[in-house]
């Protein structure tokens, strides 16, 4: 199983590296959105709840671009059927895709968080950065699992570009709520506070719940 996941993950990263179909688009989208917010809010800087909300909503919409592309190469080029013909555990695909999406999200945040700090954020992010990265990581795990599940469901339908966001966005709402509530004290103007433990626990539980649901359902989603 470990070798299969490693082989599939390597393939995912190689295909993205060669085609650059997901991460550059996600990063560009997030930076553009911050610029739009900068002008739409008519404020030079934001902090606290508003800053946390803008950051999480932007990251989730940018993540949707990656989710929509996650199975496209497999479906259009037949790689998914190649995988289905192999005598391997189907969950290996779930793990590899989730890890690949997690890598894409980390790459997105490497661009988006500095851009956010530069374009919109009032307080300095330096002191709160380790905690912010922790909260983002918890949210990323949930987005990666839900995104993979939804992408696998949508990929075999003709309306996959529409179905993906329609299914994913409601499922992402608890992540936005938990992530924004946990991030808000870190982006407060008067100095960074601690992220509330209950929202961190909520994010972790949601990740666990969707991890279990994804493992239970993924096989069925890939079947005819």
């Amino acid at each position, binding site marked *: 199983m470990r070798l299969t996941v490693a082989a*599939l993950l390597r*393939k995912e990263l190689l*295909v993205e590296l060669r085609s650059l179909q997901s991460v550059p688009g996600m990063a560009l989208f997030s930076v553009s959105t911050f610029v739009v917010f900068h002008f739409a809010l008519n404020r030079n800087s934001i902090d606290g709840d508003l800053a946390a909300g803008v950051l999480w909503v932007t990251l989730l919409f940018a993540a949707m671009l990656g989710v929509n592309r996650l199975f496209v190469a497999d479906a259009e*080029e037949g*790689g998914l*059927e190649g995988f289905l*013909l192999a*005598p391997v555990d189907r969950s290996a695909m779930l793990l590899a895709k989730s890890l690949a999406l997690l890598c894409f999200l980390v790459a997105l945040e490497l661009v988006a968080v500095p851009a956010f700090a530069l374009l919109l954020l009032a307080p300095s992010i330096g002191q709160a950065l380790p905690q912010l990265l922790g909260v983002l990581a918890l949210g990323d795990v949930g987005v990666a699992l839900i995104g993979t599940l939804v992408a696998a469901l949508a990929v075999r339908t003709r309306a996959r570009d529409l179905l993906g966001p329609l299914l994913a966005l409601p499922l992402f709402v608890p992540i936005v709520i938990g992530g924004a509530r946990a991030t808000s004290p870190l982006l407060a103007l008067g100095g960074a506070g601690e992220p509330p433990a209950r929202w961190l626990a909520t994010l972790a539980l949601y990740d666990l719940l969707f991890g279990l649901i994804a493992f239970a359902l993924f096989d069925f989603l890939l*079947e005819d």
Partner: protein
Amino acid sequence: MAALQVEGPGRPGAAGVAGLNAAVRVEGLARRYGERVALSDVSLTLQKGHTLTVFGPNGAGKSTLLRVLATLLRPHAGTVQVLGCALPREAWAVRGRIGLLGHEPLLYRDLGARENLRLHARLHGVELGRVERLLELLDLHRRATDPLRTLSRGMVQRIAIARTVLHEPELLLLDEPHAHLDPAAIALVQPLIGPSSKRTRVICSHDPAGGLAEADLVLGLRGGRAALSESAGRVGVGEIAELYR
């Protein structure tokens, strides 16, 4: 040829004792795509080591039959047994013993031949040395790192054939295997997928003479139904050509 059993819709249960040694056994198979019937009441028995050639016009159900046998599609009616395993219940047991060469190469365009084949080698638990041997055998080693999107259709077809036989499958399911191949390339792939491979084969073909020459058993499909189902020795090219009229 005596061991061959050919079942048409009008000959139910003809598999008999020979069915015990069957690589493929299909009875009353039906498959639909929504309302459209792709296969209806198709029956056949193919012995191990033999070749079944499937003829029929476009949309007759040839590719659907291959995809059902490959475990990619579920039968909607009838029974399907491949290499002793009932589908779809025991599909997990038969995957890895089948090699499917379809219209699509089932490869990634942004990866090279070596990367694609190594991925499949890892999925099938095949040692990586076999990838290099196949690249050499199919004269692909010089372009092995080039992304597939930069290669000709013929070269991609050769890589797809390498993928099909990489794990030494017992049953080959070949949909127009010589498509896009020049005569030299056909000669290269023959030891792997031709009669000398000694594997059980199901081949979809539009070439009556060529397909008949390779066949032990012939199945002609029209509108998803078996219009011709006979031992190859009892069928003429003319009868096969009739299917297309």
